[in-house]
């Protein structure tokens, strides 16, 4: 006798397993989350096809894409969330992404990570698991990471995490079928099944665990994530979660929670946010050690001891001094500004090229037109000579030193060292990035202030960039000039600039209220710089710099020539310091006199003076490095005393940013703030310059 299989009896009025009563649309939701630029949108497009709607998330300007697909036999809504680095949001995009997870009740969360940066992205997977969300992990960009030499045990990673993990390359479609199958299986949920995906659970320090236990007992489950995750976010100082808890628990319980957070924080030297983040990273590192093999280059033991010395607040400073002495003073200053500029400007251009061109062009053209090409402000004798013979060698060597610092891994360690100092002025090491970039170009760096987390930080850094950070060409030329005068001149220059930087930073931090944000970065390995890398980086920087600077220097020559044209006997004539240009020079004489630079009166006594202080001011505002090159030219001709060199270098470093930077300041911070900063910078620069001049002349440190 055979037994027929029994058909399951249909349950009466059982709701469809596709129905999602907690969502207004009634459809289950698949939320795709992950850091920016990890390929979320590509995977979203592959899952949803062409039917996609893009709209702003309610109450924000953040765009969110939504589409539909079939998974687990149901029609599922898929949402492509904005990029987020962690559940603790910093930016508006991150806040929107988290709100989506908290408020839209996703049935499945697809965390997309960039496989080659798994170490940095896995902590968020762990955080999503802590939140009790049902997660599937897509190890994306697998092709790129494998090309770099990374190898993964995807199955083992899935076992370690306790969730489905699939390797994908969204751009080529690799692994997409397997990912869809995994999501399909994960989405065959039963309406009554619990949502929590088992997953891995991190154990924190006993004091934190105790705090988590007490907080969860007090508040229960006020948010749509696991109690443990809510407690951790409260310990990490999450303002939004605290507001949510405030609405849902009694004032007494809330007060107790605040006390627990404060008491727990007091037991650690570092902020709780960092303690928790570091523990999560350590857990991620353990998993990665068992499931991923990094390229040989990344496995090499790092020079840990040297790395610690470079970042140590005391031991690190002598290293900075050594870098400045050998890299800037000896190499850029003595060799670049001294030897190379001497060879190029005096011997090649001054001795051969320019005299030959002058003879040639003066033979062809009238004085009016020949002055356009080979006169005091001639295109060849001024614009091209400055760009090629003065600025190019100095800036080239400066870029070389910078590239060595980058390629060796010293630059981020310098950022960590400075982070400690920056904290005193209300900034964190993240502010190092725009400030370091400012040494390249302040205009670009002002735009980079967008990476800073708070408005307060953005304003302080914009002001410091405008005031105390000279761009690469300007700093190269000034440091070269000062090195020629001597180490004392260099020391006074650095002393004054650093003093003003710190004082203004401290005052700005006091005036502008707000909290300082935390900063931590993963350091690249320390290594001997690779010649090929250093040369290519230097060449690339120099190539674009030169392409940008040469036309502007030529334009400056033309403008100076035009401004010097004047009517003599009814005919146009070129008169140095005459015409419109002469008028401007005379108007700026008081400022030049204030810091002891030549005025139009001095030009009468010494016709060799190509520029007055006023011209240098004006040309510096047009283009910072052009003004610096003008000063270097006067210095090379022996027309500036050591006091004038130091005072003018300090004043022009602090002086108003160039016109391009001012325009970006206006764009980023608004006209009122930009004008206010410009006025402040003008007063500080000339005030500091005049005061320094009085001190130097009174003490006689630099001669008279």
């Amino acid at each position: 006798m055979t037994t027929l299989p029994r058909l399951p009896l249909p349950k009466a009025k059982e709701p469809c397993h596709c129905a999602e009563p907690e969502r207004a649309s009634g459809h289950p939701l698949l939320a795709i989350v992950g850091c920016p630029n990890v390929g979320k949108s590509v995977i979203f497009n592959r899952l949803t096809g062409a039917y996609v709607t893009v709209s702003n998330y309610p109450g924000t300007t953040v765009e969110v894409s939504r589409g539909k697909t079939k998974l687990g036999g149901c029609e599922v809504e898929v949402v492509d969330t904005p990029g987020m680095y962690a559940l603790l949001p910093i930016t508006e995009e991150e806040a929107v992404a988290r709100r989506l997870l908290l408020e839209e009740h996703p049935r499945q969360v697809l965390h997309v990570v960039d496989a080659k940066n798994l170490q940095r992205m896995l902590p968020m997977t762990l955080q999503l698991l802590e939140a009790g969300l049902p997660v599937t992990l897509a190890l994306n960009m697998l092709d790129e990471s494998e090309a770099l030499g990374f190898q993964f045990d995807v199955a083992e990673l899935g076992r370690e995490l306790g969730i489905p993990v699939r390797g994908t390359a969204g751009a080529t479609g690799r692994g997409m079928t397997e990912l869809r199958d995994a999501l399909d299986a994960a989405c065959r949920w039963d309406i009554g099944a619990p949502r929590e995906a088992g997953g891995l659970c991190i154990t924190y320090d006993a004091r934190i665990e105790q705090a988590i236990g007490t907080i969860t007992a007090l508040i229960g489950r006020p948010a749509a994530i696991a109690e443990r995750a809510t407690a951790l976010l409260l310990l990490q100082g999450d303002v939004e979660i605290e507001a949510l808890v405030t609405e849902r628990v009694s004032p007494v319980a809330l007060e107790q929670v605040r006390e627990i957070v404060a008491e727990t924080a007091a037991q650690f030297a570092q902020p709780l946010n960092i303690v928790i983040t570091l523990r999560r990273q350590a857990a991620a590192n353990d998993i990665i050690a068992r499931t991923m093999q990094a390229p040989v280059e990344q496995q090499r033991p790092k020079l840990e001891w040297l790395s610690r010395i470079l970042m140590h607040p005391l031991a690190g400073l002598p290293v900075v001094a050594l870098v400045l002495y050998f890299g800037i003073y000896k190499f850029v200053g003595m060799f670049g500004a001294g030897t190379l500029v001497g060879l190029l400007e005096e011997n090649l251009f001054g001795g051969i090229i320019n005299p030959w061109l002058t003879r040639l062009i003066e033979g062809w053209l009238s004085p009016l037109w020949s002055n356009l090409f080979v006169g005091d402000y001639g295109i060849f004798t001024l614009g091209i000579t400055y760009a090629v013979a003065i600025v190019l060698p100095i800036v080239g060597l400066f870029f070389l030193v910078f590239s060595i610092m980058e390629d060796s891994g010293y630059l981020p360690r310098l950022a960590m060292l400075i982070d400690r100092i920056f904290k005193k002025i209300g900034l964190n090491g993240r502010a190092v990035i725009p400030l370091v970039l400012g040494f390249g170009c302040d205009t670009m760096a002002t735009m980079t202030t967008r990476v800073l987390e708070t408005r307060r930080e953005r304003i302080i850094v914009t002001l410091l960039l405008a005031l105390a950070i000279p761009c690469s060409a300007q700093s190269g030329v000034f440091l070269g000039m000062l090195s020629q005068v001597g180490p004392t001149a260099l020391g006074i220059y650095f002393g004054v600039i650093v003093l003003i930087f710190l004082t203004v930073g401290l005052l700005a931090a006091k005036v502008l209220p707000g909290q300082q944000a935390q900063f931590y970065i993963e350091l690249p390995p320390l290594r001997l710089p690779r010649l090929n890398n250093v040369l290519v980086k230097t060449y690339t920087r120099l190539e674009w710099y030169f392409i940008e600077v040469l036309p502007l220097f030529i334009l400056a020559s033309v403008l100076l020539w035009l401004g010097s044209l004047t009517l003599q006997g009814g005919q146009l004539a070129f008169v140095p310091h005459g015409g419109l240009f002469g008028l401007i020079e005379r108007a700026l004489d008081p400022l030049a006199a204030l810091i002891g630079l030549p005025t139009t009166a001095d030009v009468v006594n010494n016709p060799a003076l190509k520029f007055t202080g006023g011209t240098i001011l004006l040309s510096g505002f047009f283009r910072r490095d052009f003004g610096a090159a003008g000063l270097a030219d006067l210095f090379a001709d022996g027309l500036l005393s050591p006091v004038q060199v130091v005072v003018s270098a300090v004043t022009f470093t602090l002086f108003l940013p160039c016109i391009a930077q001012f325009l970006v300041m206006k764009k980023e911070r608004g006209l009122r703030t930009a004008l206010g900063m410009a006025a402040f910078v003008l007063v500080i620069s000339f005030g500091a310059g005049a005061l320094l001049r009085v001190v130097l002349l009174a003490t006689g440190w630099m001669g008279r």
Partner: protein
Amino acid sequence: MKDTRITCAMCNHHFTAEEGAKSCGNCALLGAGGCHKVRCPRCGYEMPAPARLPAAIAELVAKLTGKAS
């Protein structure tokens, strides 16, 4: 440029030149050519975009020495 891989000198993040160009604010001041830099999508640090000439030279050398793939 699309396939060039870049490692951020500040935070060690790996990204492609395309990602680096995408995360940049594209400065209007320097015209349509932009500043020819790439920006790390993670920390915002800017680096020069890979120059064409060194890459072309490396390719030529590889061809001449028979090491081209």
